[in-house]
């Protein structure tokens, strides 16, 4: 009986996903090419920051996407716990590693940006530290959802965690901001980024859009995989 209920939504999802995917993939590649052109080839304005502002074009969008990803996990978690939407669990499983990868990219690019700017590969500034904690929250979600033989239990535990985490994120951000101002040496480290100049906005937005399209693409692909894997599991149990 569980098979029929399970198959209802995911089948529809799969049809939707396969219809959308070719054009989505095309749009993603296109956006990435345009974004990379603006980010790497277009000459930057005269700034103290100079060329290294190009790193910001990947650092900032990946930060945005990692945060959006966690919000998605929380939304899917709520959808699973409140409405018992079966697809929500599978999509959460699919999306968590994607969000975690964007967080990882954000951390590494942030470190590489810090080196020419401030001389060290890691600075305990508020935003990087908050992103590090977000990365840990992602790891926790991924580990928890896979820690049980009963996948359903793992999905629902992870859903609770995502909701608790999303409530805690502002609190964590606030306390890390506070912690950072307390321990600041005399020189104010502003890794916040340069003021928004129009010439900077274009590559930034293009990269953001292309990352968003890539995120959606990856989540769709991975959700399809999760659906298939779950069907395989059910088949194995029934056999």
């Amino acid at each position, binding site marked *: 009986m569980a098979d029929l209920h399970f198959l209802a939504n995911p089948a529809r999802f799969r049809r939707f996903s396969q219809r959308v995917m070719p054009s989505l993939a095309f749009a993603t590649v296109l956006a990435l090419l345009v974004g990379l052109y603006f980010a790497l080839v277009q000459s930057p304005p005269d700034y103290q920051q100079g060329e290294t502002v190009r790193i910001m074009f990947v650092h900032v969008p990946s930060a945005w996407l990692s945060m959006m990803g966690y919000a998605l996990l929380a939304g899917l978690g709520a959808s699973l716990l409140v409405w018992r939407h079966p697809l929500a669990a599978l999509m959460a499983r699919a999306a968590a590693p994607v969000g975690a990868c964007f967080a990882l990219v954000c951390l590494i690019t942030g470190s590489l940006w810090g080196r020419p700017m401030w001389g060290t590969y890691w600075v305990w500034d508020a935003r990087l530290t908050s992103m590090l904690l977000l990365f840990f929250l992602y790891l926790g979600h991924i580990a928890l959802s896979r820690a049980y033989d009963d996948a359903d239990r793992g999905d629902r535990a992870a859903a609770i965690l995502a909701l608790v985490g999303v409530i805690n994120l502002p609190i964590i951000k606030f306390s890390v901001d506070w912690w950072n101002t307390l321990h600041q040496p005399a020189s104010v480290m502003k890794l916040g980024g340069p003021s928004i100049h129009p010439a900077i906005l274009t590559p930034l937005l293009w990269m953001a859009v292309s990352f968003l399209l890539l995120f959606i693409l990856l989540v769709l692909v991975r959700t399809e995989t999760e659906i298939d894997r779950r069907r395989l599991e059910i088949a194995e149990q*029934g056999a």
Partner: protein
Amino acid sequence: MSDHAVFILSAYLVVVVVLGGLTIASLSGRNKARRELAARGLERPREQRAKASR
């Protein structure tokens, strides 16, 4: 100025490696699951029918 290029290139390289790697892994994972399901899934309906008729 030019030594900063190392950092810029490394950053974009990281993006390509991590996100590209994730894309490749996701696509190959999907294809693998599809193949396995195709190999097994086609059998299942028959089995179910066989069980139901018992």
